[in-house]
């Protein structure tokens, strides 16, 4: 079984509004799958449907080869969810809370699992404290502890790093990366750099529709439109008119004066760096660097969410 999760043309409609529109994607076993989209794109709704909290209006969600709706009781121990607002009881201590979660899932070895999770998430200092008095960063970690406590093989984390200080964000990311050794993780975020750092596969959603889905490399390739070159010239040099350059059509030319750098985009994907350098040198221009630039995920994302909005 390669795909743990298959979402097949899932739609969620509310009166007068389509929150999720015919969404399809799949998550491979053992991967960290990034689920990317601006706020309000339908990420949380989709994740709640996958977790079995919300039935889709139409379409099917298959998890571990089983259809999620109508609710399957035995699937409940297989999914861990950290919702956008961590479901915490403010009047319980961290330990009592996690014990309660463990008991709800019929766990037997709660004390040993407690030590494991508490030390894994660096919660030692607060384990006896009341959750309501903890900082936002600690609360988020307790929420994550809840999601992983009963050892579910599939984890859904809805913007786990949202609103945390930079130090906590780094720690949490490292921890999530560590989890991926044993588990499959669906991880949502609206921050691209984050997804690029920890995910190997991504799905981009915008206005309830999937814009792209696949592994990072594929998405990069798919959205690379023609060759983009980063051209560095020696100080003082000027880029000549390139419209007469060979038989290649030059799209846009961007000039960054501060660095004597140019971004050149071409319609063609053919790598003609040697020809270009030969041409420029022939014109008596000193070339510093020529690099092929692969588009940043950020550009792809902005491109997709703007142009089709």
């Amino acid at each position, binding site marked *: 079984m390669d795909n743990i999760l298959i979402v097949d043309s899932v739609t969620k409609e509310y009166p007068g509004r389509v929150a999720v529109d015919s969404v399809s994607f799949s998550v491979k076993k053992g991967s960290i799958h990034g689920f990317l989209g601006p706020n309000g794109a339908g990420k949380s709704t989709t994740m709640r449907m996958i977790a*079995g909290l*919300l*039935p889709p209006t139409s379409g099917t969600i298959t998890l571990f080869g089983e259809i999620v709706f109508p609710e399957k009781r035995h699937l*409940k121990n297989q999914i861990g969810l950290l919702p956008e607002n961590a479901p915490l009881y403010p009047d319980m201590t961290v330990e009592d809370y996690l014990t309660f979660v463990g*008991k709800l899932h019929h766990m037997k070895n709660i004390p040993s699992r407690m030590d494991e999770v508490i030390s894994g998430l660096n919660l030692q200092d607060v384990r006896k404290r009341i959750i309501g008095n903890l900082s936002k960063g600690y609360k988020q970690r307790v929420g994550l502890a809840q999601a992983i406590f009963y050892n579910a093989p599939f984890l859904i984390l809805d913007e786990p790093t949202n609103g945390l200080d930079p130090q906590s964000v780094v720690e949490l990311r490292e921890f999530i990366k560590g989890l991926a050794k044993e588990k499959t993780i669906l991880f949502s975020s609206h921050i691209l750099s984050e997804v690029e750092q920890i995910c190997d596969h991504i799905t981009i959603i915008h206005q309830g529709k999937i814009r792209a889905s696949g592994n990072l490399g594929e998405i990069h390739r798919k959205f690379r439109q023609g060759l983009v070159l980063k051209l560095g010239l020696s100080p003082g040099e000027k880029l000549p008119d390139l419209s007469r350059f060979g038989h290649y059509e030059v799209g846009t030319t961007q000039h960054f004066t501060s660095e004597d750098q140019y971004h050149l985009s071409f319609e063609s994907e053919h790598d003609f760096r040697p020809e270009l350098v030969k041409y420029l040198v022939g014109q008596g221009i000193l070339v510093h660097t020529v690099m092929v630039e692969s588009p940043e995920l950020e550009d792809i994302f902005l491109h997709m969410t703007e142009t089709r909005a």
Partner: protein
Amino acid sequence: MIWTLFKKEAQSYFSSPLAYVLIGLFSLISGIMFFNLLVTYSDGIQAIPQNMTETVSFVDEVVLRLFANINFLFLVFIPLITMRLFSEEKRQDTLEIFWLSPVRDWQIILAKGLAALSLILAMLLMTGLFPLIIWGIGIQDFSVLFSAYLSVILNACAYISLGLFCSSISGNQIIAALLSILGIMFLWMITWGGNLNSNFIVAEIFHYLGISSHFERILRGVIGTQDLIYYLSFISIFGILTVKSLDRRNW
């Protein structure tokens, strides 16, 4: 599983000041009522001739009135106890913990109901002092106490099931409390409606549907099957309605 859920609810009750404020207030008010009934009774006894004291029953004048008054206090106290049960979880988004686990909805509802009942029992425990006082002044007929306590406990169960339902339909505690107060008043008004109606059959139906006639029969020690069935079906209906209301998440 029910035990785990019950323990969590009970802990959350008894770790909040509200529980102790309610227990304290309840003891105070019911104590004043008891004292007042005792004084009224002894004044009444002294006012009538010696040979007629037998006609004024201590049980009727003090015990039954006290428990009817306790039932009246429930109108405010039980909605205050049940209002937070589901509303609070909704506000904190914590119901998801249950929905992510293999727990069934009816188990959650039952555990919450039992936890509320345990708080009511703690309140009623305080009234256990009253029989001791009566015993101290030389009255020893306690047979009526069993049915009297049973009647208020059954009423409490019915009000709790109603309160649970009200709490499950609103994310706002105040609204949940108001709804259940109105609900309990409506239950009483059905009986008054029966009293006002001249048609015998309609009046009987009203009396059966209202809670008061069942309460009064059991309070007086007449524990009939029809009354027990009434309470059982009342609690079941509101239990099922609460399950349905929680199921709304699946719409």
